[in-house]
């Protein structure tokens, strides 16, 4: 089996049993990729009568056949029965998905509920369920730093914050830092009393024909290359990602400003000023061909001068749009 690692990890949180199943080859052929197989596991094992907060609901972490290679990059999909009784699906980038593949698994299925807060530590073949008394009640960054101090700095962590622990209906799962899978998956993770999933892998992803694979990858890189491209979308997305939408929306007059009373703000956002004032370095997910879809920034001047942070393509919809222009705030 190439691409796939061919293993499903089943963790029973109530009885603390861990099973490693083979991935059926007909699933891999018929339901391509992580979302399809996540769906078929949910369809077969979680019926319509199952209550989302019951023992029978399952939480599935899935990766695809190309995850961990430069073409597939890093997407990971979390699926479960949502609290509104539909499928809840949260996708995230970052470095967690490839690490799971390198550890040797395509899918993790969490079953039943735990009585006490626990976290899972996956180190290649070794899978452990451990007590998470010191993690519970803390936010994702604190969980990250505690686990890294305990297990080493090269692990990747999926964790929930206090929203997931308190069963807020749209809680998210945070993958390491600043990569989030939303749509209420964190609620079910909190309901199962699962604080974090820490992964370390030292294996690889096998490819049948590396020469052909790399030739295909070079073709893709040529389309996205900044020197060769004819698509205006490529350079703007490569440097500003979703923040460029603010500029475009403002010019078109459909920016949500002052609680939707206005469609435009004079002198709203200038890409050049934004780059000059705040951005200091590029930052990216696993194997991203774009140089700066995420950026590291430093606040210069004012009360919070010297604060360092990262932003990703969600910057527009979250910070800039709903907390920014909608309240009449911009930089």
């Amino acid at each position, binding site marked *: 089996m190439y691409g796939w690692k061919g293993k499903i990890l089943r963790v029973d949180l109530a009885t603390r049993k861990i099973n490693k199943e083979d991935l059926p080859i007909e699933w891999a052929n018929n339901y391509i990729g992580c979302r399809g197989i996540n769906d078929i596991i949910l369809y077969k094992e979680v019926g319509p009568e199952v209550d989302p907060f019951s023992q029978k609901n399952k939480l599935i972490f899935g990766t695809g056949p190309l995850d961990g290679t430069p073409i597939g990059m890093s997407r990971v999909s979390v699926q479960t029965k949502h609290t509104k009784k539909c499928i809840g699906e949260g996708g995230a980038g970052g470095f967690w998905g490839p690490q799971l593949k390198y550890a040797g698994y395509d899918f993790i299925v969490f079953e039943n509920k735990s009585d006490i807060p626990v976290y899972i530590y996956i180190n290649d073949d070794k899978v452990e369920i451990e007590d998470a008394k010191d993690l519970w009640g803390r936010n994702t960054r604190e969980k990250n730093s505690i686990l890294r101090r305990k297990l080493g700095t090269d692990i990747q962590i999926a964790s929930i914050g206090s929203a997931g622990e308190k069963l807020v209906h749209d809680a998210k799962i945070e993958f*390491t830092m600043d990569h989030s899978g939303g749509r209420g998956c964190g609620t079910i993770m909190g309901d199962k009393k699962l604080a974090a999933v820490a992964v370390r892998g030292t294996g690889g992803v096998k*490819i049948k024909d590396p020469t052909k694979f790399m030739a295909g990858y070079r073709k893709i890189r040529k389309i996205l290359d900044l020197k060769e491209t004819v698509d205006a979308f490529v350079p703007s997305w490569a440097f500003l990602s979703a923040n460029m939408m603010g500029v475009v929306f403002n010019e078109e007059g459909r920016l949500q400003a002052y609680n939707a009373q206005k469609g435009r703000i004079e002198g709203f956002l200038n890409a050049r000023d934004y780059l000059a004032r705040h951005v200091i*370095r590029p930052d990216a997910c696993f194997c991203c061909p774009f140089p700066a879809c995420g950026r590291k920034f430093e606040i210069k001047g004012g009360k919070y001068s010297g604060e360092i942070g990262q932003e990703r393509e969600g910057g527009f919809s979250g910070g800039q749009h709903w907390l920014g222009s909608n309240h009449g705030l911009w930089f």
Partner: protein
Amino acid sequence: MQKRIFVVAPDLCSGCKSCEVCCSIGQEEGNEFNPQKSRIRVIRDELGILNIPLVNCDGNNCPTKADSEPTCVEMCPTGTLIFTDLEDVYWKRMELNEKRRIQPLFKLIVPWKYPYPWKAYREEE
């Protein structure tokens, strides 16, 4: 021409690990993408500001290279990895500093990777 060497500009590294992963496919047998086998290791700093690539290779016997450049240099999206002779490195650094003063975009990428001003606008002028 002088002997070509690897030069790393860590203030431009996005920490994407393209170099690390693309290097590993050519190493030894096994046909697999495995960062453990790679000759490059990227140290990511999630909370801080600097991602640092560590290169353990002289770049001359790259098994997967297509052109004159090694695969890692070709795949680097920002231009952090530079494979050239010492004099050229000097001039490239000069060019980068000059362009940074005019256009803040070059905090994120090197000028020889990005054609500024962009060619679609140049044609109109």
